[in-house]
């Protein structure tokens, strides 16, 4: 592999790999290190990769590196240090609600099993279809569907207790906004 090809590979997939590890680890530093090591490994082995399988392969290498390095360590869960959710409102009252909502999500995602969280965030943040997630993780669409519904169930249970009152307000606010956007 020439350096130019490697650069193209990096530009195309580095972000995806880093996000994938981030969904599993919720830790900026670890995700960055693992993604970097993954690419270094591809370079060192000078692999010739079928373009159709490259993303799955990168995810596989990254996943293996993550497991072998960090499975037994306690990892700081810093999801919202790195990820800023959808646009914040400027209204001070909304700001407060937003912080509460984020805290609730933080706790819910932290307690969510890693497999469910990864699939869930790939679908929500990267907006990937179940089929795409299945291909990249080497799983069946059925498995992805199952993990998604488990993740939503988990979220429901954990959000409900924290934001029973709040959610109605936020939902009202958000759904209104979505409706308005759709009408545009």
């Amino acid at each position, binding site marked *: 592999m020439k350096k130019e090809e490697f650069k193209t590979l990096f530009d195309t997939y580095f972000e995806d790999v880093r996000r994938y590890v981030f969904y599993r680890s919720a830790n900026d530093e670890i995700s960055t290190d693992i*993604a*970097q090591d993954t690419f270094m490994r591809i370079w060192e082995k000078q692999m010739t990769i079928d373009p159709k399988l490259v993303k799955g392969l990168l995810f596989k290498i990254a996943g293996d590196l993550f497991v072998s390095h960090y499975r037994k360590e306690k990892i700081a869960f810093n999801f919202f240090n790195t*990820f800023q959710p959808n646009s914040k409102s400027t209204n001070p009252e909304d700001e407060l609600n937003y912080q509460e909502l984020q805290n609730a999500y933080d706790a819910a995602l932290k307690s969510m099993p890693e497999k469910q969280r990864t699939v869930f965030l790939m679908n929500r943040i990267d907006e990937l279809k179940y089929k795409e997630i299945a291909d990249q993780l080497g799983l069946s669409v059925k498995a992805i569907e199952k993990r998604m519904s488990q993740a939503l169930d988990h979220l*429901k249970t954990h959000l409900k207790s924290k934001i029973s009152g709040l959610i109605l307000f936020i939902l009202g606010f958000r759904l209104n906004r979505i409706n308005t956007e759709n009408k545009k």
Partner: protein
Amino acid sequence: MKENKDDMNLSAVDRESKAFLTGGKFSWTKSNADIWATLESKIDAQPKGRSLNFNFGKLAVAASILILFSLGSFLRFYSVQIETSVGQHLLAELPDHSKVDLNAQSKITYYPHWWSISRIVRLEGEGFFEVEKGNKFTVISSISTTQVLGTSFNIYSREDVYKVTCVTGRVKIKSKIGTEAILKPNSKALIDAEGKINVLTGIETFPEISWKKNIFLFTASPVLQVFSEIERQYGVKIEAPTDNFTLYTGNFSKDQNVEEVLNYVCPALGLKYIRKSGVEYVIIRENE
């Protein structure tokens, strides 16, 4: 009713989590550009880039090839040497019962495990070969190569002198410069140091192979060759003037002792010998 409410909750969570998470932004501590810079410096530091990655399967294949190769080499190159010292005659038998009579101070080398594939013998000195019928039988010496199928012949290969005498069958000789000759029975070939072959036909073979019967016949042979032969047969050292190119015709038998032989040879050439010590003799001209 309760289930219905639950379902509504679930789809609400679905919608709500989509609204909250989709379209969010990442702010990494290290940008992609920073990381590329790090990777690039690592790549440039080790431009070859290929790490040694031992794959066990490949290793096993390599090991098997190595073992087969070693075994092949062993079968091919494992050699047996038979050597005679001064004064010693020996009858050596090769794996296919071909026989070699080795004259004194001679050596043959052959490859017993490779014998059935090709019959090759390396010879230094003099030997009389009786070859069993079979594949090509090759005798390699420093000056020439001799090939036969099944026959008997004598090879003399010492220093610069190379003589092949064909007794039965057919013998093909090839000098190191590539000239070839085929010998029929009762003929002999002499190859000089330059590789030129000189064939003599219709000769008596007995003088060439009489050494087997401990009789040494010389017909117009350089006198230094005669003294070398005496040295070899009796295990003595003979110091002779090297500028003597006289030719000697005569014979001696190994039944006689060395002084008897010298007494016999020297006067005929106008020479005499002085015994220097136990096994050392000096040859000088009679009138000195």
